């Protein structure tokens, strides 16, 4: 993996060397204590640091070397640019890495393609009335075996590709072979609480020097909404295949209420995150990664939106068409997971695990503190 000396990596390395001499930001988040453990930074180290960064931008606004200073230190942007390179570097199969920068287009094409496939697979004309109250109504439109086969294949492919990517990341950053359970616990809690997002406790800097918790809350809404939708699907699958209870389920059943709540939370979270991005200070943002952020958010928005629409209209004649569209979008989402912004969560969690595993080294190597420009 000979990408470590790209211009992006060189710039990140230069910035990190300055940070390592300064260390004023060491209270902000995990990135700075991780920098302080090192004196020279390999491309793997930089990849680890870039993925450890939660992009809260606190360090940018407190930086005495931020542009227009001649050092033009802009760690959030440098790390975001580098993250995109690492996403591409670790992607599997490698040629599909090209999809990252076209993830919006790729997802649209896939969604359209799979919608057509599902329409084509439909047993009956989609407009034909299916009694939606009848158990197995969805399968009356699209045959069960095919629906499951296609979605499961897409999902399993995504899992495989993500796992290989994760392995590539872990290897490239020369992370330890093993981590103890407390490291896992700590990485898990850091991931689920976003502890490092505005680690000072005041939140992120979105537009300027002022702090806000809004990004954390909207990200939580999106992330936990996504998990609820996932839980909804898993519960439904269990109902069908373990208990033999066929969908559609009533509104107050576990799968439907979790799906509805999760879908709504996702929509709220996405709307909030898009609004934050639209009004954010562009200087510490990566233009390239921003496009990819928007593509992913739009894809999730359509997935959640079509799901909610399907729920709302499942008793009408539109159900068949909506089912085909929603399935098409979901299959496209699954297939795109390894080639879109979704991967940030995988690498971020892995970087947090590595950070937790480095704890003994940090405890040993209490570096001398700097004291300001005079001492």
């Amino acid at each position, binding site marked *: 993996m000979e990408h470590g000396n790209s211009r992006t990596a060189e710039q990140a390395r230069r910035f990190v*060397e*300055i940070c*390592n*001499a*300064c260390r*004023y*930001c*060491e*209270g*902000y988040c995990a990135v700075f204590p991780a920098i302080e453990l090192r*004196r020279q930074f390999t491309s793997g180290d930089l990849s680890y640091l870039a993925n450890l960064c939660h992009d809260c931008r*606190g*360090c940018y*606004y*407190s*930086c*005495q*070397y*931020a*542009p*227009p*200073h*001649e*050092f033009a230190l802009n760690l959030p942007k440098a790390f975001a640019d580098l993250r995109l390179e690492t996403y591409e570097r670790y992607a599997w199969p490698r040629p599909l890495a090209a999809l990252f920068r076209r993830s919006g287009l790729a997802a649209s094409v896939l969604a359209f393609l799979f919608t057509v496939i599902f329409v084509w697979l439909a047993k009956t004309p989609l407009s034909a009335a299916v009694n939606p109250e009848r158990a197995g109504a969805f399968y009356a439109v699209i045959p069960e075996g095919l629906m499951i086969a296609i979605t499961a294949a897409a999902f399993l492919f995504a899992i495989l590709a993500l796992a290989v990517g994760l392995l590539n990341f872990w290897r490239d950053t020369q992370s330890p072979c093993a981590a103890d359970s407390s490291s896992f616990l700590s990485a898990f809690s850091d991931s689920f609480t976003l502890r490092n997002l505005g680690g*000072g406790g*005041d939140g992120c800097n979105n537009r300027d*020097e*002022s702090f806000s918790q809004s990004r954390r809350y909207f990200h939580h809404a999106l992330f936990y909404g996504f998990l609820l939708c996932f839980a909804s699907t898993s519960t439904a699958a269990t109902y069908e295949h373990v208990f033999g209870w066929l969908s559609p389920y009533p509104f107050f059943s576990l799968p439907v209420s979790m799906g509805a709540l999760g879908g709504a939370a996702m929509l709220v979270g996405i709307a909030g995150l898009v609004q934050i991005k639209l009004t954010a200070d562009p200087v510490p943002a990566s233009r390239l990664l921003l496009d990819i952020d928007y593509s992913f958010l739009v894809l999730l928005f359509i997935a959640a939106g079509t799901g909610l629409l399907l729920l709302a209209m499942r008793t009408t004649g539109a159900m068949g068409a909506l089912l085909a569209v929603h399935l098409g979008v979901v299959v496209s989402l699954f297939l795109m997971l390894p080639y879109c912004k979704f991967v940030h969560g995988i690498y971020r969690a892995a970087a947090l695990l590595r950070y937790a595993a480095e704890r003994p080294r940090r405890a040993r190597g*209490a*570096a*001398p*503190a*700097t*004291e*300001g*420009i*005079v*001492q």
Partner: protein
Amino acid sequence: MIESCDVLVVGGGNAGLSAAITAREAGASVVLLEHAPKAFRGGNSRHTRNLRLMHKSPTATLAGGYSSSDYWRDLLSVTHGKTDEHLARIAIDATAELLPWMEAHGARFQPALKGTLGLSRTNAFFFGGGKALMNAYYAAAERLGVTVFYDTEVRSLCLANGMIREVSAAPNGASSSLRPKAVVVCSGGFQANIEWLREYWGDAASNFIIRGTPYAQGGVLKNLLAQGAASVGDPTQCHAVAVDARAPKFDGGIVSRLDCIPFSIVVDRSGRRFYDEGEDIWPKRYAIWGRLVAQCPEQIAYAITDAKSETLFMPSAFPPIRAQSIGDLACKLGIDEAALKATVRNFNQTIRPGKFDPGVLDDCHTDGIAPPKTHWARAIDEPPFIGYPLRPGITFTYLGLKVDENARVLMQDGRPAANLFAAGEIMAGNILGQGYVAGIGMAIGAVFGRIAGGEAAKVALG
């Protein structure tokens, strides 16, 4: 621009904002003029990291206790008595009240740091550093209704009979005048004014690196001294350390600092050593090396060491220059090759066996060379050899305005000015006439900024 106000604050660093916020909270209308554009606002405060506070018992951000008398003793030891005890004790005692005030105005502090050269007991560290503190203060000032003008240099203050009548400023280079009821000057020293430094240092001053803001031109200081304000502090003196010669001319701040000298030899460009690099522990010798390098030809020197010492000191923002042989290193650094080889050979041969310990004054020293290296002397023999170029780095100057306990500027006849106050670096020389102790500049700025702001509001509001 606004033509009048109750209190005009000149300079928007720690002292200026402390004064502006205090005056505004006392009910005065306040205008603050900052020479720098917004991106570089805050003077040298944007490069600071902590301030020194007395406290009776541990706090969330300070370990142990640090009594008023301990604080005074530390100040006395660095100034060698060049301090006004009355003002110093006012500053020290008032630091006990600073933390809650600062926190109420948006300041955030790091939890007490461990293993920070003993500073966790005496100094509170700003979360994110001085620029983050300045951001918080500017936000607080604007919330309170202080009017801030950036890019606005004050050209002159018209001082007649101990009274400021008019202040001429240059917003974005244009010219404008104000008639405030009271004025607080917090515009720092003159360390960024190379021409002024040249008066005392000659041509050597052109090779100085200014560690902080380029806006510390000393214009207000010079203007007031010329109109009969009393001065304090030795005008020829400045705090000077050795910094990485590759640092920017201005605003390089903390990252150009080099702590490698005790573990190196330092030579001038002809390859000769000129001072005992291991004379004492580094914090005690840190501030003499600026002057030593300033006395070298072309004001440049080079710290030379080898692979085994590289991790003993904080990294500089600039990677060291590396070479596989001393000769190559000399070429890369531009030092006389034969002379450097001879110096290193000679140094290595005169080292007495000892037990190396970077944490204490160990017994590794040379024998029979001049100057000696009295501690941490180890042979420079393990490639890659590393070198750092050094220049004098000026932190601040000591010349200032003499003030009384109300931060009122004193005239040469000893009488206080009626409506002119000073806080921060421009008057720190009253308390810190020599030397330095970490975090005292910010402490003086915060305490006297608050005093000056309060007194100026009193004068303005009658």
